């Protein structure tokens, strides 16, 4: 009954696309316009929080190795934490812009988890390359929420924040042999995994 690992990757990639597009839209039209309908303000933080909750089944059911279980557990927690903080900021339960550092920490911890749980070099195989790339993208993207603490109204930083999620989504869509993006490109590469 367990879905294939690649399907789970793609489901979360879809979630990141939604997040990224919401953030890009907010950056383009401005927070005031975006928040005219109240539910829209909750959309991306709520999605982030929900993705954190949904990561728990991944953690508990994909237990073919300890390191994957721990990595998925870490992502579940940082996604929930970052989503919860952003929801609380929107709701007004907390107000300091420095709470945005939670998102920076979430990016950093997620990136480090990706890098630590990939033990092979960059060019060992597709997934190694993408794990390294995604890990470093996340580590680098941690600077964006940090910048948003200092310049919360910056359109450039808002767009970069949204783009970071879109890039992570594309990398997740690429991450498996049967991926919809850069899938099984060459017969030289051997038979598809599944």
């Amino acid at each position: 009954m367990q879905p294939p690992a690649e399907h789970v990757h793609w489901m979360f990639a879809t979630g990141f696309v939604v997040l990224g597009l919401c953030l890009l839209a907010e950056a383009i039209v401005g927070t005031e316009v975006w928040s005219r309908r109240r539910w829209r303000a909750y959309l991306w933080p709520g999605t982030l929080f929900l993705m954190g909750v949904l990561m728990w089944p991944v953690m508990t059911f994909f237990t073919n190795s300890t390191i994957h279980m721990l990595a998925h557990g870490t992502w579940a927690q940082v996604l929930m934490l970052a989503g919860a903080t952003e929801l609380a900021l929107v709701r007004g339960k907390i107000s300091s812009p420095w709470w945005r550092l939670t998102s920076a920490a979430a990016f950093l911890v997620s990136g480090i988890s990706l890098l630590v749980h990939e033990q092979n070099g960059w060019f060992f195989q597709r997934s190694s390359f993408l794990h390294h790339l995604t890990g470093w993208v996340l580590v680098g993207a941690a600077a964006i929420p940090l910048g948003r603490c200092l310049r919360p109204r910056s359109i450039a930083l808002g767009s970069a924040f949204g783009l970071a999620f879109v890039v992570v989504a594309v990398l997740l869509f690429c991450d498996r042999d049967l991926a919809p993006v850069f899938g099984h490109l060459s017969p030289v590469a051997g038979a598809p995994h599944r």
Partner: protein
Amino acid sequence: MRRVAVVALVALAFPANAWAHATLEHTWPSYRERVQTAPKTVRLDFDQGVKPLSNSIVVYTEGGRVVSGTARNGARLHDVVVTVRQLPKGPYTVRWHVISSDGHVVSGVFTFGVRYPAPPPTAAYGSSGPTATEHVVRWLYFLALALLIGGIGARLLVVRGPLPPRAERRFYLLTAIGAFATLEVGIAAFLLRAEDALQLPFGRFVYGDLAPIAGGTRFGVAFIAMTLGFALVSALLFLSWLTDRVVLLWPALVLGLGFASGLSLSGHSAADAGSSWKSELADWVHLSAACLWVGGLVQLAVVVLPLAPELRRAAFLRFSVFATVLVALLLAAGVYLSILRLPHLHDLWTTGYGHVLLVKLGLVAIALAWGGVHRLIAVPEVARGGGRLFARLPRSVLGESFAGMAVLLVAAVLVDSKPPVRPQTELPRSASTSATKTVVSCSAPCLRTEAGPWYHAASARRSSPPNSRNNSRR
């Protein structure tokens, strides 16, 4: 720039058939299978090609004797096969290690039985049983449950109305700590048990296959259910804080109490000889009452008494009634379980389990005496409207909660201890027919039961497998 793009594309395309380390997909015999005919070989099937080592599959008898030969690839590179000698009736442990296509050694363990119930992998040959660390982790888990479930219970059943903002913040902080700790400590407990079953050094444990433990043991299934359940409880707790809707705490409380039953459904009350739905229910009532009592005391001492002066009188009197009911449930369930596990009074002073139970009873007596002083002295004074007592009451209530926490520590040790084996004639009929329960009642030398990792004298004298870390751990 173009060069970087080309390199990236090539890396994405080649080699595409190796995407992660190997995952074990099937085994013959399968996990915990009870086979009627002794197998001639043991075969593992992976999701990708693997390279076997000479000792890739080692099959142990219950006594630790190796009955397998040299492992080799089977018909496909995905398969690893080893021949085994003629296996007599009994339980067997299979420990395996293969080199994955990414160069990592992946490892695992599973068990099967020949005309005999297979023990869970946590009781496989070579595993050493719970350590002092596991006792502490289990205690922390109980405390986390008490903070979470007891905190929410006290908020809904004792305080009821709105709290002042500072008290409300502290209530959510304490219960959030409980929720976080429940998840974290639960993961730590699972990994400690898995580490003991796999018996691998850390570098290889990180690539150890946890699937047989997660899916093939009561403990693992309880871990999955409780982790998912308490993640949901955490989400509800957060949403309650975010939206200022205390009503969301009701489903959190119901789910929390419901998923706490995972401990009762995977412990002695579910797996040992003589267990039934009544013992499982009693265990759950015992655990729930203890969590609500201790957690409620903490909320009273840390939140209500110091930060909600207008509510403390009503809350204290209400908690007094609430705690009386909880203690009655706690004692009734505890007495029932004690009689079930220790059918003879002399078991209390002649068995190790009885000794731990005596210590627990002593601490329970202290906690009850402390509560009794509150009931007999503080409650009438508060009911008369005497306010002078409230200056000292938080510390005294906190003291009672510490006594309750000490009881939980001994309870953690008790859960990991093994009740004395009841003679065959005393067992209910169902106990000797169930696969997991028969392990206790078998006449042959036994492995540990699933609920209480413990050694029979015969199994304690066995030699350790080649990679066992028992000696260094103990």
